């Protein structure tokens, strides 16, 4: 029992954070999505090969090794299909030597449509799409699919309806369920990261913005709202980290742990977003500040791969179906 990240895991996250600080500042999120800022550098440190087996040039690690790094991509609101490329693609492309090799080398940005998902996030930024059709996954080069933008609240993480000719797709042998679980945990980690950014930004604003002769952060009502955000994040994060371990080990509790992670991370992040806006005032969702980019990301990600209501409903059924649900550990 050692529920703490290893030095290697921490070092990777720290490197990713440094890369993102340098190559994906808020200005890059605001105006640079189409350039996929920081992707080349992240490829350089091997982020996209983390979960790819070593025989294809990857690192053969697990989601638990990547979860903190993914959290950093959420903290930075990194544009592009990161969760899909890092977490879903290796599982979907299992056995496809050429595709895995390119993936591990960081040459392929991948987006996906799996599970009950209808839209493909950032499809326009992907090189390869993996789309399920009748439950079977097909790899489709981005050029071979018809993308229709479904514009939404998040100007950066764009959703697309995608049509493709089955003939243009190549059936791949991976496991859509494993991929869905991994990408859901990855998105939960990004939500935790985005929530941490929103909390830090709100604390910073509250410490300097003055109203009624004092910083707004000196008022108890503001303090307590921000404390509640901190608590929500503090107790959501361990559920996300456990889900990464459960999925890696393919435990019987994995499905439940994934739902618990996504629901808790989504709620913590939505609370962080609401509070950030309340603390900042109406300026918070205008183009005057970059805060809106994180707010939008939270609303977009919390609806992705099953919203809170869907996961809560799975959890209710899973827990009440059994007289004594198994715990792990």
């Amino acid at each position: 029992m050692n529920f703490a990240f290893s030095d290697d895991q921490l070092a990777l996250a720290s490197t990713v954070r440094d890369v993102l600080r340098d190559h994906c500042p808020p200005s890059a999120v605001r105006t640079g999505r189409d350039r996929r800022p920081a992707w080349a550098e992240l490829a350089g440190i091997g982020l996209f090969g983390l979960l790819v087996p070593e025989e294809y040039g990857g690192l053969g690690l697990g989601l638990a090794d990547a979860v903190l790094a993914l959290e950093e991509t959420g903290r930075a609101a990194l544009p592009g299909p990161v969760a899909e490329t890092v977490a879903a693609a290796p599982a979907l492309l299992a056995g496809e030597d050429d595709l895995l090799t390119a993936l591990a080398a960081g040459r392929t940005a991948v987006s996906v449509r799996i599970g009950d998902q209808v839209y493909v996030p950032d499809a326009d930024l992907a090189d390869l799409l993996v789309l399920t059709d009748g439950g079977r996954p097909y790899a489709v080069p981005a050029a071979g699919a018809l993308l229709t933008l479904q514009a939404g609240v998040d100007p950066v993480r764009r959703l697309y309806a995608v049509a493709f000719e089955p003939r243009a797709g190549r059936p791949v042998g991976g496991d859509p369920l494993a991929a869905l679980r991994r990408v859901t945990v990855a998105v939960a980690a990004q939500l935790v990261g985005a929530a941490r950014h929103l909390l830090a930004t709100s604390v910073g604003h509250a410490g300097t913005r003055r109203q009624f002769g004092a910083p707004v952060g000196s008022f108890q009502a503001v303090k307590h709202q921000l404390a509640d955000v901190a608590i929500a994040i503090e107790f959501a994060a361990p559920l996300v980290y456990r889900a990464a371990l459960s999925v890696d080990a393919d435990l019987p509790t994995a499905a439940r742990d994934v739902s618990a992670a996504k629901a808790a991370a989504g709620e913590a992040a939505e609370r962080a977003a609401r509070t950030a806006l309340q603390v900042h005032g109406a300026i918070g969702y205008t183009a005057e500040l970059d805060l809106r980019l994180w707010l939008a990301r939270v609303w977009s990600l919390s609806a992705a791969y099953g919203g809170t209501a869907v996961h809560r409903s799975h959890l209710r059924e899973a827990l009440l179906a059994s007289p004594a649900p198994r715990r792990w550990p």
Partner: protein
Amino acid sequence: MDLDFTAAEQEFRAEVREWLAGNVPRERLPSMDTRAGFEAHREWERQLAHARLSAVSWPREYGGRAASLIEWLVFEEEYWAAGAPGRVTQNGILLLAPTLFSYGSAAQRDRFLPGMARADHIWAQAWSEPEAGSDLAALTARAEPAGGGWRLHGHKTWSSRASHADWGFGLFRTGPPGERHRGLTYFLFPLAEVEVRPITQLNGAPGFAELRFDGVFVPGDQVLGEPGQGWRIAMATASSERGLTLRSPGRFLATADRLLRLARANDADPVLADEVARAWLDAEAYRLHTYATARRIAAGQEIGSAASMGKVFWSELDVRMHHLALRLLGERGPLSAAAPDAEDDGRWLDGFLFSLAGPIYAGTNEIQRTIIAERVLGLPR
């Protein structure tokens, strides 16, 4: 105590309903934050005014029909239930006009009210400044005396509708700086000479604007009330803003009904269905509470700080309803009007973003809760 409408009230409701059924545009008007949409909304308001429905509670001489508060509430219920367009005239009719009735001169009323009712003049409010959001007494924009009038200087922000409106109203400092709520004066000014910079919101729409005043001249007869009395007068407006007239229940009833239909159409999970039912009933509670308040006002009682309870209640209900809708829509929740798959032309997302401002403007809900605690409950400052 009874909850039955009088025959006259029922007749009025029937008239309004019939007129709306025949006149509400079938297609949603373009956003009033665009020039074309603004003018389309102005045209709609002119139709309303032609039917004497743009300001039903005003005296007939200014374009109203001297409707009672209850009748005004009935009008609002019918208006929003009919899916009629948002009111581009709202800042004037609901925020400024009550102040004009209380503090304006007869000449000012004659000059400004009929054009307001007819939407010839659409008004924007200009309260906040970058360093004075919730804390209005910290205002620094100033007015300096100049031959027969004043020249305005400074910077206002969060002015809704200002990008396309004709006139503005707001407070400027005429006394020495730093005097907090003393030495403020209430001005009415045309926007033509003011520099207006739209502020883009999350949904891409410029719902607000910044105003820069660089010595704009305002003649003396465009001061509302006495110079130096601006704070007292503005608080009266703010009190009506927080009170009955800012957000009539009709809006929330209509949202609640749409939400219920959405929940049925999406075969909502029982947990979401429960929250939908609760929101629908909260809208009912707000409606009933408002009827009781209207009765108290009609009986000459002050409602005072109790209006703060309504503001907290409706603003948080509005956020909850829209957030519920986004959750019911799942993956389609974050889609905007421009998305082919967007539900109801993206109104749920637009409404969600708009609702989030509710707990902030017109005195944040934190300020309202403190007012309730101190002025209604009598807790120590």
